[in-house]
């Protein structure tokens, strides 16, 4: 392939630009990884570095010393992510499909209803009152799953994709004797796999990264998800180091986990998501090319 000097220059520029973006993504991760493998005194003396000077595993030893808590938190996170994603994608798709059908008479009203929740919500206190008092969901694993099941944004994303499926396919299925459910299952879902996979990834990220629901509604240690465990660790240390002059005498900081332990915890928390992301990626690529070929 022969290319003109300007094109080559352009390509070099694009490559440099991409390298920059990639390094922006990778460097923080590397810093976290390296810090998790650095001893406290090295951090104090030399600061943070991208490559651990003298690899040291005390951070991990500290975090893994009491593995029950961590394993239980993993269990809670995995359970909520799996169940939440599966049920969420069903709820989302079942809501988005009728919304995308031009022959559904109430679709405008329903779309407005869904859209309305994107613009306005009840606010923290009323939400809390409904969830905790009316539905009595405190300290219940369901409280980590239910609130995120119907996500207006994901529903619209799916609806937009469903709208690209030709109605003639649906009609053809009906002529062949398929009812609505069969059409949905055998025609729509296979065609929409890339979109469903994308939204599933969003769902799983949302569930995996959530700690706020746990902060509000969970008091039982056995129901604490991983991210809340992590955020609690971080916020404890931040709070004490900032407010030490306001606190009563005798607050002891020495019992709190240190930098390397926190970073180790961080890596353990994001680890599974890295793999999940890699798995979903092939759908992303396919989703894009599918659209491109068909025009």
């Amino acid at each position, binding site marked *: 392939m022969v290319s003109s000097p300007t094109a080559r220059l352009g390509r070099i520029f694009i490559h440099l630009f991409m390298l920059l973006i990639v390094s922006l993504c990778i460097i923080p991760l590397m810093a976290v990884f390296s810090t998790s493998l650095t001893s*406290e*005194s090295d951090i104090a003396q030399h600061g943070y570095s991208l490559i651990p000077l003298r690899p040291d595993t005390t951070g991990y030893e500290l975090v893994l010393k009491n593995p029950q*808590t961590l394993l239980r938190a993993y269990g809670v996170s995995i359970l909520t992510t799996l169940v939440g994603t599966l049920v969420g994608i069903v709820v989302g798709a079942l809501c988005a499909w009728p919304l995308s059908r031009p022959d559904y008479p109430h679709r405008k009203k329903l779309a407005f209803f869904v859209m309305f929740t994107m613009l306005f919500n009840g606010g923290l206190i009323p939400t809390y009152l409904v969830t905790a008092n009316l539905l009595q969901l405190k300290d219940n694993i369901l409280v980590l799953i239910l609130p995120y099941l119907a996500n207006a944004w994901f529903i619209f994303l799916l609806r937009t994709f469903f709208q690209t499926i030709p109605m003639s396919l649906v009609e053809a299925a009906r002529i062949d004797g398929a009812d609505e459910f069969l059409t949905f299952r055998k025609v729509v879902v296979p065609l929409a796999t890339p979109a469903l996979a994308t939204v599933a990834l969003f769902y799983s990220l949302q569930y995996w990264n959530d700690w706020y629901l746990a902060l509000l509604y969970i008091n039982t240690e056995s129901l604490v998800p991983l991210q809340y465990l992590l955020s609690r660790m971080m916020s404890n240390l931040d709070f004490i180091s900032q407010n030490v002059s306001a*606190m009563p*005498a005798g*607050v002891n900081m020495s*019992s709190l986990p240190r930098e390397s332990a926190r970073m180790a915890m961080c890596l353990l928390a994001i680890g599974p998501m890295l793999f999940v992301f890699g798995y979903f990626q092939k759908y992303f690529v396919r989703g894009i090319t599918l659209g491109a070929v068909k025009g």
Partner: protein
Amino acid sequence: MGKHGILRLFLAVAFLVLGSLGLGAQTSEPVKLTWYIVGSWPQAGQEEVFAKFNTELIKRANIQIEIRALGWGDYDQKMKVLNASGEAYDIAFTAPWMNNYVQNVSKGALLPLDDLLKKYAPKTYASMAAKYWDAARIDGKIYGVMNQQIFARTSAMGGRKEFYDLAGVKLPQYPEFIADLKQLEPFLKALKAKLPANVTPLEIQWESLREHYGYEQLAPGVIVYFDDKNAKAKSEFDSKEFKAYYDLIRKWNVDGYLHGGEWVSVKDRAPAFKNGEIAFGVGGTYKPGGDVELEGQYGGMKAVSIPMSAPVATTSGIVATMFGIGRNSKHPVEAMQFLELLNTDKELYNLINFGIEGKHYTKVDANYIEGMKDSSYSPNILWELGTTFNAYLQKGQPADVWTQTKKLNESAKASPLVGFNFDGEPVKKEIAQVDAIWQQYGRLVNNGIGSDKEYREILDKVKKAGVDKIVAEADRQIAAWKSSKK
């Protein structure tokens, strides 16, 4: 089933019969309370300790308590939601610095306790002087029960004893104190000369020197001097004390007594104290037996603690740790009875604070205990869960530490504003801004690397952020408080 089994069976049947006859008062269902506390939670062994605590409690008062122990970073946020939603909890930790007491009272989240206290917690009520209860009063009513501890505040510095001995320069000991920071210079000079090159002599914080400079902070950037009988609010940074501190710390940095620029970005200095990379730190408050508590911070080495001011009693020191009873509590009487138990029953207090004997600590003799290494239960918050005067002594603490502490409390000079609680809500925005400015410049100042330019910047920015508005609001509230007292 042995002898005991049969006995137990017999008792159970007896209770059943008595209960059905309406005679067995003991078989009535225990009253269930919820109790919100803050600390380095969760502790690995907490379930076990809380369960034992409950067994003991049911025996004593037929009260069952659900302990909701939250971490430092979560408590405040969670309590805000609970209070706003009117959740029916019974007891919660409240203080000026955490789950804000004044705001809780002004929003009506807490019950007034005057009558309950006198009726159901007479011993606790009698154990503290009226002037201390006055500190907790808002519009004449008490809304929180203080956990007795060291009420007086005394600026202090601490460090390893070996370094102190190495320097060979005597510093004042309690009741004497370092009245002027310049008094430290010969000591620092000797330290610098004799310490290994990789050890920094001092770590200092403006925030920890309030009593030393003789003022009380009402809000970020706003202070009242202890010796000001009119109790007029002033700007914290536009003071001769701040200027003197700023210049002195710069000089100390040049002289090599501080870490300087190198360390400005390191937020967490605790490991450096532990490893002995910093010799002395200014912070905390002086208290009897305090050097023992410091040992943990210095990696288990013997430590010394040196007072840097006379003891002072301020509202924030007295009400620094309290328990309030929730407005929607269904059992306020039992909640108060529980607080009375927590403050009078040594066994209960020590159980919740130190855990179970033989598992989390060992007894050395009747009063002294020693914590287990890597114990699964050491919340370390003696000052929160009841009166510290009931605590077991820890190795190295003087036997009369609590008597000494009481004495120190009594000897403390009272600030003219004892009983005044500043409500920052009306000037929330300004307070947040001034606080942000200090967060930005504080480390620079405390490490002595700012120049005259930064000094002027701080003053300028604080002014622009509206410090005068906070001062005016403080003056208004102080005037209202004074007139309400007459």
